[in-house]
């Protein structure tokens, strides 16, 4: 509740200033792991994200339990054994576009974008940089990015019995459509 009031207050402030903050409530963030034994993909379509075209500030928040797996048992293990989603229900990112001068939010087009900031998963916060694109079209902005991460980075222990089924490098894809008002 407190964070929400803060967020809404921030939103209101930004709306008073010249540029309007962009928002999504149905951001699609998914990950993919592939080993010779197993291919896993899990999708979260409910990420909340904000993007401030004036400052380049970018923030995401999502619920771990919102990741949908093809198999129920995998989803259960992911939540209970690895991510401990009852204890750490959310993951978040807060950062900035570092090449903001190369992006014109007033002109339609696809711009290469670089973002860096801090990501928090499983109660571990680490710096993260990613490259991707921002596609400006009319009033909407579509952000696409891919980056690699490991379970180890976030203090997630993978038991040796399933070690061969989970890739060392897990690919995370961000596919988010921002609009001015939602």
């Amino acid at each position, binding site marked *: 509740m407190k964070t929400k009031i803060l967020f809404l207050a921030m939103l209101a402030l930004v709306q008073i200033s010249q540029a309007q903050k962009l928002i999504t409530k*149905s951001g*699609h963030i998914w990950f993919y792991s592939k080993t010779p034994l197993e291919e896993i993909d899990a999708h979260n379509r*409910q990420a909340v994200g904000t993007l401030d075209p004036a400052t380049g500030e970018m923030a995401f928040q999502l*619920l771990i339990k919102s990741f*949908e797996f093809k*198999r129920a048992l995998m*989803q259960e293990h992911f939540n209970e054994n690895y991510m401990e989603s009852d204890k750490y229900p959310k993951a978040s990112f807060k950062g900035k576009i570092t090449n903001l001068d190369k992006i014109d939010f007033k002109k339609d087009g696809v711009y290469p974008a670089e973002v860096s900031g801090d990501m928090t998963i499983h109660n571990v916060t680490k710096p993260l940089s990613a490259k991707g694109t921002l596609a400006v079209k009319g009033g909407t902005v579509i952000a696409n990015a891919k980056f690699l991460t490991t379970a180890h980075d976030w203090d997630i222990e993978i038991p040796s019995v399933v070690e061969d089924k989970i890739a060392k490098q897990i690919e995370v894809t961000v596919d988010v459509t921002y609009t001015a008002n939602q």
Partner: protein
Amino acid sequence: MSKRIRFILVFLIVALIAAVAAWKYTFKKSESNVASHKTEVTIDAPELLQAFEINEDSANMKYLDKVILVSGTVGSISKDSLGYTVYLKEEDAISGIVCSFDNASFDSALVKPGSQINVKGICTGYLMDVIMNKCYIGD
């Protein structure tokens, strides 16, 4: 029939049943859960939202991972490559319930902005809104 053959037969049958059960358990499809699942909580959208706004922790304890039948007013509908998102929001509210549907479980003829609907899904938590996924249109 000798004792030995009978034993082997029984053993084989038991092994077969165990194998089928293990297979079904391991490869259980996640989607099939909600529609056939019994509703655990029936609640109005504003009441569910309020529970999370007042105390997120206690609402998590009460509603997380539960199959919930929520009734509310459709604020907006959006579509992406994986399915539909219905935003249940009362007219002057600032937050609502975000409900995600797979393409197969959504009927655009039934859901129009402003209409009153029942959505059955699993509550996964609270961000700026209450989040439900694997949703179906309820009765």
